[in-house]
């Protein structure tokens, strides 16, 4: 029997209501199509503060936090940035809760040399209001900006060489963090590729340290990067994480949230369309009609306006590896849906948000990251689609970039991609030079732009999807040249896309729809393996 989150459409099924950017659209899919829905949200922890206190007093693989503290010591707290969760969660953010308790404990133990660093890696600097959203008013007012600030991966004076891995990979980290007596990392494990060694080794490092694993070769060999066990990306980062843990005293606090992305009035967006009640059907129709008519800024404003009501489902403290195993299991409990049989065609709606466009437009490069990157990688065991299969995505692919956040993306997209789409060639020919572009570096350091190397990493992020998929077809594109630049085809309708996917042959297709958002992962039984009825992660 299939998992309740797996729905097979029949001839009476209602159209599926899915995102195509910041529009909601109705899509008719053929009978037999399998739809993978997000699992219902796990129950949130009733007393999050008590759970956090319990976790830091009962850590895994480490002394309790209080046992590490002594008066006069130097402590740095690193915090995940606003790229997780998506969209940003309703206040108080989980990180605010953790920080409040940790800072109180530090004060109680006479530790007053404390600084909080937003662990950006090479993401854009957060604006003051975004930091306030994460840490809360009280902490923001007490610490910002002198003792609460963004990590600057290009501030050479404040980057310190920490060591090498046994593969000769260099690790340079934020100097303040590297020279502290204790580094506390406060994480929010939104998806299974977050957290673990990635927190410190990526969040606090510089561009040179990133290049060892943020490259096409690593991504090609990751199967998938949402499954740490099969992810070369995770393995490579772990090598550097171990270097950090050998050199520094690190106390990790990882948290997980459920998938309650939409508030109660909109949570029907995660449900099987055939199970909606009358009110939900009406609201669904109204949203489809409204988002079709409203101008783009108004649509974006609507979705920016409502933070997600995520709830804490787990908090684990101690050493990174011990903690991460537990956080990952909690992620899998929420996201994994067991499934057997790879599809010929994977249909993925592309929503309006990704980790890299909070408060900005989802530009074409980020559409690619979602399609061939994150959504393709939402599996464990084997890809949801067969090797050489077709990915159909729904998005307008509008040629629009945020001028502030994504300035380097424009040059990458319109100047480099027309030269080549080969990720290896892009890396060897252009990446290092582009990463030293003084104008873009200034926008990264002085403004709120992503690092000039970031668009390269975004292209590499789609590399295992690109290598696996036979073709990508876009439904609903408002132009043809943007998809073409990414090597994609366009179709005027889903029917047309499916016809093309057949390649002119009279055959039936196995079609799977990944009904995102919210997040869902397929726990795919690898081809040839005995069929599993429960999968590994269902709770």
């Amino acid at each position, binding site marked *: 029997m299939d998992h309740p989150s797996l729905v097979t459409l029949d001839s009476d099924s209602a159209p599926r209501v899915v995102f195509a950017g910041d529009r909601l659209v109705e899509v008719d899919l053929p009978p037999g199509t399998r739809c993978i829905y997000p699992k219902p949200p796990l129950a949130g922890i009733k007393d999050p503060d008590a759970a956090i206190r319990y976790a830091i007093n009962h850590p895994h693989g480490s002394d309790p936090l209080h046992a590490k503290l002594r008066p006069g010591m130097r402590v740095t707290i690193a915090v995940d940035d606003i790229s997780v969760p998506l969209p940003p969660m309703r206040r108080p953010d989980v990180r605010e809760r953790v920080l409040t308790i940790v800072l109180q404990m530090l004060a109680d133990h006479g530790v007053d040399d404390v600084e909080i660093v937003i662990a950006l890696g090479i993401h854009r600097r957060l604006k003051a209001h975004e930091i306030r959203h994460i840490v809360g008013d009280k902490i923001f007012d007490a610490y910002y900006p002198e003792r609460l600030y963004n990590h600057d991966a290009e501030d050479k004076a404040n980057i310190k060489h920490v060591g090498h891995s046994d593969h000769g990979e260099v690790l340079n980290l934020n100097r303040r963090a590297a020279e502290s007596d204790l580094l506390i990392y406060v994480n929010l494990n939104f998806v299974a590729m977050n957290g673990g060694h990635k927190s410190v080794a990526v969040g606090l490092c510089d561009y040179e340290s990133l290049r060892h694993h943020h490259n096409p070769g690593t991504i090609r060999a990751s199967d998938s990067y949402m499954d740490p066990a099969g992810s070369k990306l995770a393995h490579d980062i772990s090598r550097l994480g171990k270097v950090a843990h050998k050199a520094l005293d690190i106390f990790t606090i990882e948290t997980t949230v459920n998938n309650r992305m939409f508030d109660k009035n909109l949570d029907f967006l995660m449900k099987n369309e055939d199970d909606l009640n009358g009110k939900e059907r009406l609201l669904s129709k109204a949203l489809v009609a409204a988002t079709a008519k409203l101008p783009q800024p108004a649509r974006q404003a609507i979705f920016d306006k409502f933070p997600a009501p995520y709830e804490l489902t787990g908090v684990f403290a101690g050493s990174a590896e011990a903690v991460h195993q537990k956080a990952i299991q909690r992620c899998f409990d929420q996201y994994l849906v067991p499934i057997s049989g790879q599809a010929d065609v994977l249909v993925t709606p592309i929503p309006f948000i990704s980790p890299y466009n909070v408060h900005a437009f989802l530009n074409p490069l980020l559409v690619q990251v979602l399609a061939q990157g994150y959504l393709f990688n939402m599996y464990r065991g084997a890809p949801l689609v067969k090797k050489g299969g077709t990915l159909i995505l729904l998005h307008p692919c509008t040629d629009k970039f945020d001028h502030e956040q994504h*300035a380097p993306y424009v040059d990458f997209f319109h100047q480099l991609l027309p030269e080549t789409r080969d990720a290896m060639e892009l890396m*060897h020919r252009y990446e290092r030079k582009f990463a*030293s*572009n*003084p104008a873009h570096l200034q926008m990264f350091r002085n403004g709120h732009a992503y690092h000039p190397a970031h668009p390269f990493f975004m292209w590499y992020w789609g590399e295992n999807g690109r290598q696996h998929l036979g073709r990508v077809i876009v439904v609903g594109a408002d132009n043809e040249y943007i998809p073409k630049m990414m090597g994609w085809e366009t179709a005027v309708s889903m029917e047309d896309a499916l016809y093309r996917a057949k390649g002119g042959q009279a055959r039936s297709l196995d079609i799977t729809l990944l009904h995102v958002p919210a997040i869902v992962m397929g726990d795919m039984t690898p081809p040839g393996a005995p069929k599993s009825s429960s999968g590994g992660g269902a709770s």
Partner: protein
Amino acid sequence: MPRKFLLISPQLDTRTGLYDSRGPVAACYFDVDGTLVSTNLVHPTLYYLVNQGTPVQSALRLGKALIQAPRMAVAELLDRRTFNELLFSAYAGMSEDRLEVLGEDVFKEIMLPSLYPSAKALVAQSLAAGHDVVFVSGALECVIRHLAKLLGATEVIANRLEMKEGIATGKMLRPVVAGPEKARIIRDHARAKGYDLDECFAFSDSYSDVPMLSVVGHPAAVNPDRRLALMARAYSWPSFDLRQPI
């Protein structure tokens, strides 16, 4: 106008199997006033005028300059070069020695306090990228030279006064560095130095420098005025503010 942004295909290093990503040597051309410092051409001139040998001389020179003020105001709106010529006519009669001595004072008293907090970092990043850094300024070379030394610029292209027997005539030596002429100067300079203009950068705050920005492959608007900000947005030029510290 189409954006000129062609990246040269680097050469394959047959020993390492990697592409040489450095490419040809390039330069970053910087406007100075309003871009790296908050001063404009008038500030140093006033400093010179009020620091003459005697108060009477200062008063006389200031008076003459005031008479020219309305013409300069009109010229500023219509033609940058004419404005420069009118402004620098105020230097007529000053000795070269005096200009040199006061040049250092102007730098210390006027320019240095007006240096934008993040200007140094931008120049440092340009040098770190392996580029030559060239200041292209309508201000006097004897002032800009000190800023160039402080920030590590490779070269200065700035205005120079015509001298006769050690005394300024009030005229400027050709070419006058202003407005569209900056574009031609940069083109000639790049050609003489062997830079590929498509690889070069230019930074300015002013719409009047659009010609200069347009001849390089990588233009950028720095603390842009309204019209330049709009243009930068339209053409997706990088745009940022050096007035805030990093």
